[in-house]
């Protein structure tokens, strides 16, 4: 990639994080596609000077994106970065799907569709803090998501922000083929939420949208259009890289050189 001329400072940071994600998944396997699509979003949440996680909350509802969150938390100093090396091993606290045994993690997940409900409970019980939840687009096929949308509207959870990592792919293929979500923004609006659709790799957009969302009078949904496998050409828009085991050395080297 070309030097980061005129790029947002967080972009360089995200690129370093992508190296960390690639390294940990090359060694241990893992859900790389969504981790690379969501990293700019989680990076901004943690390093965009928008929230204070001594009191605010982050819920990773799409628990398979754990590599993305673990890399962020390690770099934020929650735990030693060397723990990333044997992620998902028997002697590691870093479970394959996100676990609150890991310092900085507030909610253990892996089974989709529950985290947004949990975030609703946090937002209700701690109304003075912000609650940011990250869900995936495919996750919206779970019925429980729609139960939680009704709930957030009823209880006017204006301190709740749901960021949807909208990368358009799930484990078996394109979301549009497996079970289309059609106009997701329209559905959220119909459910009484404030909705903004953004480019999920554009830091200025992510930051400005989160700033607005913090002051909203309604529960907030940010549909972040992202690219699965972002930054590594052969992984981009390729659902075969939803998760990966035993990435070859040649492909690893190619990926490293592209980042």
């Amino acid at each position, binding site marked *: 990639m070309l030097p980061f001329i005129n790029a947002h400072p967080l972009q360089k940071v995200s690129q370093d994080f992508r190296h960390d994600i690639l390294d940990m998944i090359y060694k241990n396997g893992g859900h790389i596609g969504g981790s690379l699509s969501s990293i700019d979003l989680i990076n901004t949440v943690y390093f965009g000077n928008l929230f204070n996680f001594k009191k605010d909350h982050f819920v990773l509802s799409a628990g398979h994106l754990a590599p993305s969150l673990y890399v962020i938390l390690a770099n934020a100093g929650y735990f030693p970065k060397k723990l990333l090396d044997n992620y998902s091993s028997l002697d590691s606290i870093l479970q394959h799907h996100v676990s609150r045994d890991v310092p900085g993690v507030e*909610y*253990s997940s892996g089974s989709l569709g529950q985290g947004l*409900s*949990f975030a*609703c*409970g946090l937002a209700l*019980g701690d109304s003075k803090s912000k609650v940011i939840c990250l869900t995936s687009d495919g996750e919206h096929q779970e019925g429980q998501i729609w*139960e*939680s949308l009704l*709930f957030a509207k009823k209880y006017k959870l204006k301190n709740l922000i749901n960021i949807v990592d909208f990368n358009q792919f799930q484990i078996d293929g394109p979301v549009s083929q497996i079970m289309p979500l059609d106009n997701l923004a329209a559905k959220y609006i119909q459910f009484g939420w404030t909705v903004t659709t953004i480019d999920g790799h554009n830091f200025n957009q992510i930051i400005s949208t989160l700033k607005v969302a913090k002051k909203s009078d309604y529960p907030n949904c940010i549909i972040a259009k992202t690219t699965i496998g972002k930054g590594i050409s052969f992984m981009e828009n390729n659902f075969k890289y939803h998760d990966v085991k035993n990435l070859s050395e040649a492909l690893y080297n190619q990926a490293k050189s592209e980042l």
Partner: protein
Amino acid sequence: MTNSIRQSFGNTLTKLAKNNKNIFVVNADLKSSLFLNDFAKKFPRRFIECGVAENNAAAVAAGLAQTGKTVFLTSFSCFSPAINWNTIKQSICYNNSNVKIIGSHAGLMSTDLGATHQMLEDLALMRSLPNMEVFSPLDALETEKIIKTVSFSKKPAYIRLVRPPTPNLFDSKFDFTIGKSHILQPGKNVTIIGHGPILEEAFQVQAKLNLDDKYKKISLEIINCSSIKPLDVTTILKSIKKTGHLICLEDHQKNGGLGEAITPLILSNNLSCKFIHLAVDNSFGRSAKTYQELYNYYGIGVDDLLSAVKKYF
């Protein structure tokens, strides 16, 4: 004298919530059935109504608990934990959330409501989850004691309640302690262990034995196993060693019920003991006018227990 277990729940929780401001209810549209109208009226901000959406309710309860609240998740057992088992597994148990799941209308005691509303599998579902404690109160008084006890605990718990008014059996001298069983009647010849109001049958059977010349010397040791998980292994084993004859009686499927929690204790302790499990045997429930009719139909009525005892002698 009879009293309502679920009314005792609603009244007790409303009383506790007056002093304990951390108590919240997350309800799935069964406020009236659980006698929570008063709670909702007195503490509207601590009464969270989720509608008939038990999965969302379970994870909302877990999120609320994360903010320091003691949350009672209230519904019928045939919906919660039946519909939302995996949400309970992940959001409540794996996250070790301070949520007490109240599953009312358990067992054949739902009577006329039929198979869909007679929850006979709840103990199987809840016993199998790590971090989960499981309680089945004997009567209204023990319900009050259990609700008080769990309100001071930080752990996930499941409390099984029933629909109709039931006989008062719990001795007010006793306290409820997690992991303790009470011997309701000491005896020498047969251990009758069970949970919930069905245990009243054991007293009826003892009365019938007393009137029968052939069996009047037989005394039953009746154990109230309201703490199903953790189990009071010491009390149970001591009684089995003494009597050598065990009958487990429960308004639940055999599969996954209390009987299946006790049999491994017998085997792993090399005890020699006769065992009969009186429970619903791999069947769905059905409607009837009284639960006693259903107990007879499914082979867990008073006469079934009496015959089981007589089989031993």
